[in-house]
């Protein structure tokens, strides 16, 4: 092995390295440009490969776009999950506090239940159709089922049923609210994911008129308002509205509503059950139960009558020993 065979590459490459290392460092001081520190931070979290796979010309352009809100934090395919998380935390987009809100169509009346005024022929799009008398449905507050929301949903969470009504799958929805903005009938609301009981009508007309137009409409009878044990239902503009903070998903209103305007599956109603081993027989739950479903006295075994229990969880929340399970 010839010694110069080794020396030459070492010197020439090393020299080049020295020059470039120093040169770049010098240049970076000399030509320093003020950059939004946030952009810089995002850029540092990116792979820095400048491959362009994100569709932007290089990592710094992508960083700029992220900061400007033009692109989602997970837009870098090279970085994958970990980068997306890092960028998200820089951007302060952490999981929104509180429960996940999912989009929900506040209308359950498909073309079987809701009367149609005319046959609409035109672009199959809710925006387009709503320009004609607000859409072919007699009821001017309902879902038209032509799928404008479907087309804006980035994750295909929305489906139009056979009978022309939009249904949103809560497990797929990512809470982007694009559909809420796009729906020309304003019939999509954001609802807590665990909410089981939802009044699915937005019609503000008088009950008599609603009755003519739709089988599932809220006719303003206010039975639900009166029956709700938790005063969770307000009545305004001829329309009942649930306050989701107060609602305990007890399904009482669902049973009472004469028109099926309130959605909720009574079979899914939870039941309270006392774990006897934990129970200290304090009667707190008995006092809390709004429907007197709990029997028991101090130092006597407490029992919940499953027939009476409406699954509101009030007892479970009150129980000091966590002895009540909701099943």
């Amino acid at each position, binding site marked *: 092995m010839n010694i110069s065979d080794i020396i030459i590459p070492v010197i020439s*490459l090393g020299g080049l390295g020295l020059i470039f290392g120093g040169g770049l460092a010098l240049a970076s001081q000399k030509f320093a440009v003020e950059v939004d520190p946030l952009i810089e931070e995002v850029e540092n979290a990116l792979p820095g490969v400048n491959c362009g796979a994100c569709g932007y010309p290089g990592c710094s352009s992508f960083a700029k776009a992220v900061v400007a809100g033009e692109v989602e934090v997970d837009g870098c395919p090279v970085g994958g999950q970990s980068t997306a998380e890092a960028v998200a935390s820089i951007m302060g987009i952490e999981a929104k506090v509180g429960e996940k809100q999912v989009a929900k169509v506040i209308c359950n009346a498909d073309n079987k239940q809701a009367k149609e005024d005319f046959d609409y022929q035109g672009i199959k799009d809710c925006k387009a159709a709503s320009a004609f008398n607000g859409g072919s449905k007699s009821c001017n507050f309902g879902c038209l089922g032509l799928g404008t929301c479907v087309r804006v949903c980035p994750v295909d969470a929305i489906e139009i049923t056979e009978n022309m009504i939009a249904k949103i799958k809560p497990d797929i929805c990512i809470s982007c609210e694009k559909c809420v903005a796009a729906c020309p009938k304003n019939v999509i609301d954001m609802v807590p994911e665990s909410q089981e009981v939802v009044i699915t009508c937005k019609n503000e007309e008088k009950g008599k008129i609603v009755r003519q137009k739709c089988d599932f409409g809220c006719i303003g009878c206010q039975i639900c308002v009166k029956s709700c044990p938790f005063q969770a239902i307000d009545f305004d503009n001829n329309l009942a509205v649930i306050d989701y903070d107060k609602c305990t998903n007890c399904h009482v209103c669902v049973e009472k509503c004469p028109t099926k305007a309130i959605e909720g599956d009574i079979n899914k109603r939870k039941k309270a059950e006392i774990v006897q081993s934990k129970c200290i027989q304090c009667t707190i739950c008995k006092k809390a139960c709004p429907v007197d479903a709990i029997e028991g006295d101090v130092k006597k075994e407490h029992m919940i009558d499953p027939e009476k229990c409406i699954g509101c969880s009030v007892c479970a929340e009150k129980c000091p020993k966590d002895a009540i399970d909701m099943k």
Partner: protein
Amino acid sequence: MREMIKLGLILLLITAVAGLVLGIVNSMTADIIEERLIAESLEAMESFFPDLDDASIIDEAEFLDYDRVEEGFEVFSNGDVIGYTFKTNTNGYGGTIEMLTGINVEGEVVGIAILSQAETPGLGDVIESDDFKERFVGIDVDGEIDVDTISGATVSSNAVIQGVESAIEVYLEVFGN
């Protein structure tokens, strides 16, 4: 400033190590590569230099200015130089045609060999036929090259002719006396 020097030095260190490693690997593989380059062409060369028993690579620096010539070999028989062989790359119809042209010490083309080509099967690949290759045998380096192209494969034929031309050119430039 301190920072700058530090960065420069680190890069220097890394590049120097890289250089070192590469230098070592190179010196380990260079000979093998050269040997196999010769070996690869040796068999093909035998088709027109039947007497050859050894060959060596001609220093590339000699014909750096000749675009199409890839490599040159001196061909020996019993220790005597009996001729030269040049490997050329020319553009055919479907891609590069890599070929060898053998020229003996008398300045006469003794034969060609096609090493690789990507011409259209059935059309351009007739350049591999013996009939076509034999058209080049005996061409004098000082004379004109007058070889008929194959109809339907003009592009391919011309590429081969160009290869021979380039070989002759280098031969004349470098060894022509």
